[in-house]
């Protein structure tokens, strides 16, 4: 489903991704772990089309289609969803207005007609209930004044409504309390499907206890340096990244 080949990306003069190669199959949950600053968020931005980064080499294919030729909105409508490490506050934009605009953009891009309001309301209400997103939050401007955990829930709510092919979760577990971690993980697990893949970026095994990965990849210095099964995450928990960062010197 997702094929990243020899990806190089930089911002200004700073090279961040340095020949990254990664394949994620349909239905797969791939965990990415790695030290701070190794480029995990950058990878998620480059896949989803943030313009600050310059891709100097490589390919990113989603179902064989080159994402790098598209802008961020086209990629979103092609099925890429990024749950941000730090979701943005958008003052003045009502959450419901935003959700409707996003869902309609997807509908249009997929040649479907726009949603009727009652249908839209029902879908939002159902998804919100599952994720413990309150009606009060839905009435406020998007993410404004939300707690860290509330913002993360809102990200997963959006993912549930937009039903992407590829969901990228960038440290979704950070800022969540123990109960919220379980609720949000259940939300993600409910979305697992044979034709949907996930890239789960995290620092902690805790999240992977809930969202069980099929593969675990270690990222360091802008590339994937080791790939393994779920047991790799447990090893890292014990031994840390010293075996991987050491090579940098």
């Amino acid at each position, binding site marked *: 489903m997702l094929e990243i080949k020899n990806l190089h990306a930089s911002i200004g003069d700073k090279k961040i991704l340095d020949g990254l190669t990664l394949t994620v199959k349909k239905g797969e949950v791939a965990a990415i772990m790695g030290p701070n600053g190794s480029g995990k968020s950058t990878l998620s931005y480059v896949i989803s089309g943030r313009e*600050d980064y310059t891709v100097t080499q490589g390919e990113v294919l989603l179902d064989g289609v080159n994402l790098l030729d598209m802008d961020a909105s086209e990629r979103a409508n092609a099925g890429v969803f990024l749950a*941000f490490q730090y979701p943005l506050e*958008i003052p003045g934009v009502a959450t419901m207005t935003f959700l409707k605009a996003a869902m309609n953009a997807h509908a249009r891009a997929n040649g479907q007609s726009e949603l009727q309001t009652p249908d839209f309301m029902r879908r939002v209400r159902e998804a919100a209930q599952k994720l413990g997103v309150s009606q009060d939050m839905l009435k406020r401007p998007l993410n404004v004044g939300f707690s860290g955990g509330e913002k993360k829930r809102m990200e997963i709510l959006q993912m549930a409504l937009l039903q992407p092919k590829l969901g990228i979760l960038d440290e979704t577990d950070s800022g969540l309390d123990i109960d919220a971690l379980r609720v949000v993980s259940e939300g993600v697990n409910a979305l697992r499907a044979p034709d949907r893949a996930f890239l789960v970026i995290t620092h902690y095994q805790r999240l992977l206890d809930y969202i069980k990965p099929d593969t675990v990849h270690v990222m360091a210095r802008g590339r994937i340096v080791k790939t393994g099964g779920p047991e790799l995450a447990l090893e890292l928990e014990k031994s840390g990244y010293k075996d991987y960062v050491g090579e940098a010197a």
Partner: protein
Amino acid sequence: MTLQRTSAEAALAADYAARRPVLFGATKMRDDAMARFLEAGLPNRRVEEWHYTDLRARMNEAAPLRSADAAAIGAARERLTSLELGEAIVVVMLDGEFNLGLSSIGARPQGVEIGSLATALLDPANADLIAPPGLGEADSIVSLNAAFVQGGAFIRIPANMRVERPIALVNLLSGGPRHAAYTRSFIELGVGASATVWEISENSGGETQANDALVIKLGDLAECDHIAQVHHRGEKSIAVHTLLATMGRSARFDSFALVKDTGFVRRQMFARLEREESHIGLRGLSLLRGEEHADTTLVIDHAAGHCESREFYRTILDGSATGVFQGKVCVRQGAQKTDGGMKSQALMLSDDATMYNKPELEIFADDVVCGHGATVGQLDDNQIFYLQSRGLSRAEAQSMLLQAFAQEALDHIADETLRERFASEAHAWLSMRSKA
């Protein structure tokens, strides 16, 4: 010290001499005002308060006054219909003159006095009311208005009366050849009275020169919501608006102005909080593009303590438009416990646009809380990316953020119908932009 007069100033002097015999009443007020005007001349860059809005340079020639003819009245009637003023009590000034035929004041509550300024000034005592001493007197454009005023509304709301329907003051300028119009209206709200005043000021395009003044006197405990809509099209049009407000004890005045599709406008508001516990809120949204120039200048005089003032202005600038915000809050020595807060925020959509922000505090009391903030910025790329990453196109994302920026200002309009009306006008302006 007399400066060399510009040709516009010379024409105004000659015009005044010629018209003096036919202008209605208040001759002393007019003569005094004209003397002050001639002393100062047209406001220009060397006058601190007008530094960014050089009217002398803009006004190459003084346009003549004109009385509306039958065709102009017919066009005005059509325009009034399309304005959809609903239930409002409507007072119309056309080309500077009060026009009873176009007005509809039948729905005014009993006891509310609504009439023409010219008639009111037959009683000399009323002349003092329409030019409150010490308020805007030093401003030469206010003087020019007092000298030339052709007509206006004179409205008095008795004590404790709540006027439910909005009172619409409509200042219209007809099309055709270049002309000028001067109006001054007066509204007094007696003790504990309340009203919504909806001021609409527009031309029909062309080279018009409008100089309007509104004098509002709020008695103790009176409450007034003021909504202003300024719409003077034409690259060579000039519109100058002055609001002069005095406020009694525990009075409330909240004003909102929408400026758009206006070639060149100066809105200036002088307010004096004369007694304790009053509240004034001045807010607005200006949408500027092309070569447009819009200036909002405020002078708030806290003459008594325990009062609150709030100013909140947002400006969106596109093309090579110019925006000016000047806000001066003066707190006099005895005005302890003053609570003042002022904000001006501008969003630049083009590198060629210019915004001048000049907030000023002059505080002579020691126990006050006053703050101000002025920002000039652009749309946030991170926010745009966030919205795009949810499938909105770049243009949709920008438009959504612009709407939000405008909406946060519009949310201050208390009246729901007017709020929605203004929101749809702002929406239309913004969507025209995203199509362009």
